[in-house]
């Protein structure tokens, strides 16, 4: 982590331009603002539920920067706001999901944060952890089967999901067929209330890669540049026929699991405060300021823009209509739904 935050030293960019660095920072600010907005709206009684990704901002902004829009597919999980934004979803689309409006991609059917967008290459997923991992592998198989070099699937999950059998089955299958897929684990040390030491006997998830005969790496997920470097390299390998990679990005979940969870029943304020010292958002802000990628005024202007954009998206989405009762019956099968036919 030290390599990017020491003033005076040359910044390690992993090939990223100033514009890309600023785009990542913008994504991170937007994530934090939208996370905050979800919790605010919940406390105001305007949405029944919200999930936060706070602590995952750098990891997701960096990973999304490595995604090739229009080519790659993303198979995310429910704590991937920044990845969704980073591959092209707008704050308005995020807020439609929060407000469960008819214009939401899912028509207001799914929980918030369960995004899907065929146009963006974001695969539909449920709340069942690891169930989406074989889907990513199946999609990667389709790409390889059709000989589509230059495409890959980025599939993400939390540390807890790696306990599921389907996680293992999927990595194993991808290894057998050398599929163009990158397994990115966002390790925030908590699976709802279960700490990682109760989730696995050997807590370095990346080391499991050796057991599958594929490359594995762990990196600092509080650093978007380091994240980008790792994910970009793995995706490039996948796109060029080099097979799958297992990546473990270390981060922390600053918020409770969701608006329905009180994390102070299972972890201490001190632990959260300790991790807050490494908060990736102010940390990356310092890096950009120290290396003159942005000025203080630029940063303040960007923060105002992000807040304004979030406010506008909130108002616009809130004003949209709910799905109607009749919408309960659509899209079950192709054509009209007929019970018992």
């Amino acid at each position, binding site marked *: 982590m030290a390599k990017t935050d020491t003033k005076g030293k040359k910044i390690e960019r992993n090939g990223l331009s100033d514009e890309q660095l600023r785009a990542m920072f913008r994504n991170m600010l937007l994530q934090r603002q939208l996370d905050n907005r979800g919790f605010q709206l919940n406390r105001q009684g305007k949405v029944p539920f919200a999930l936060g990704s706070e602590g995952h901002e750098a990891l997701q902004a960096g990973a999304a920067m490595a995604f090739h829009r229009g080519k790659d597919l993303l198979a995310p999980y429910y704590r991937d706001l920044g990845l969704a934004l980073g591959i092209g979803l707008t704050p308005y689309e995020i807020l439609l999901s929060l407000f469960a409006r008819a214009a939401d991609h899912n028509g207001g059917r799914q929980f918030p944060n369960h995004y899907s967008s065929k146009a963006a290459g974001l*695969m539909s997923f449920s709340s069942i952890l690891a169930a989406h991992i074989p889907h990513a*592998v199946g999609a990667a198989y389709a790409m390889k089967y059709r000989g589509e070099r230059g495409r890959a699937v980025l599939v993400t999950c939390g540390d807890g999901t790696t306990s599921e059998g389907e996680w293992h089955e999927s990595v194993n299958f991808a290894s057998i067929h050398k599929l163009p897929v990158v397994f990115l684990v966002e390790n925030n040390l908590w699976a709802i209330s279960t700490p990682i030491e109760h989730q696995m006997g050997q807590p370095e998830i990346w080391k499991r890669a050796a057991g599958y005969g594929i490359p594995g790496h762990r990196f600092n997920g509080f650093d978007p540049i380091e994240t980008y470097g790792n994910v970009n390299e793995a995706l490039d390998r996948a796109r060029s026929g080099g097979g799958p990679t297992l990546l473990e990005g270390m981060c922390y979940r600053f918020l409770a699991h969701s608006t329905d969870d009180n994390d102070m029943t299972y972890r201490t304020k001190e632990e959260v405060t300790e991790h807050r010292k490494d908060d990736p958002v102010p940390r990356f802000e310092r890096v950009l300021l120290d290396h003159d990628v942005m000025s203080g005024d630029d940063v303040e202007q960007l923060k105002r823009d992000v807040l304004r954009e979030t406010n506008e998206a909130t108002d616009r989405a809130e004003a949209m209509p709910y799905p109607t009762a009749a919408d309960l019956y659509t899209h079950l099968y192709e054509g009209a739904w007929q019970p018992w036919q």
Partner: protein
Amino acid sequence: MAVSSPTQTTQLMNNVDAVRATLYDAMKNDPRTVILGEDVGARGNVFLITKDFSKEFGPQRVIDTPIAEASIVGIAVGMAMEGLRPIAEIQFADFIYPAFNQIVGEAAKTRYRSNGEYTCPLVIRTPYGGGVRGALSHSVSIEALFYHVPGLKILAPAFPADVKGLLNAAIDDPDPVLFLEHKKTYRLIKGEVPDGHYTIPIGKANVLKEGTALTVVSYGLYVHWALEAAQQLADEGISVEVIDLRSIRPMDKTAILQSVEKTRKLLIVHEDNKFGGIGAEISAMVAEEALFSLDAPIRRHCAPDVPAMGYAEPLEHEYMSSPAKIADAMRELARF
């Protein structure tokens, strides 16, 4: 079934031949079609249904998977979402339980949860059913476990011509279909199968034998036994109408109600357990919609409430029905 013209040529096939020929055509006709499952490659499936497919179509289209049922279906779901037309095989229906979430929670909900943005055109084939000394884990019927699930279609044809027509319909279908093949009928049941590509509409039952004294609704192996029993009763002067459901979900409600309104008595016969089985839903539907057409209580002749048939011959015998047992159930209802 598709209307046969007098000039239409047919082939005599058993049910295994019909599945094999239909899969072969699908592989031949559509490069998006892939088959995946345990031992489907070099071994050609445990019933030799895909024998030599791997040689002809290549191992990338006839995929020998690891022994991992959840991901066999899960990977097929991902393939379907990304434009392939996978046909996943679960080697025996008894092994489908690890894939339950992928079928119920994922495949059946893909279209619905994405508001139609993503679809899951997937066929899951699996041999089911007993009478082959399959014991507790190679003989079960699974339809009732999946019957409850909106978003799925479930087919269980009994005759080779229906196997071909409905498997073609399943392969062409834009939504997930669970295709159940009764393993005792695989080589036991033979019939003429029309040449060329045809489909049978999903959701249409077939009135195999018309009758006036009572209606028997069944599917799978027991359809054949119900027909045999109905012939015995015909010799005794009792006219039984036999309906082969073919499609379990969606179900041909119209065919059942029309028949019951004519015969005024209903017997449901299935190999799956009675409690919570398909017969329970048919009974409820007929009670709701045609109670006053009935001259007798609805009867269900189904398996006892035990987990499955035992391996020992007397245990299997006790669990399974037979043409004679079905004939007894028919006589009893006819006498009411």
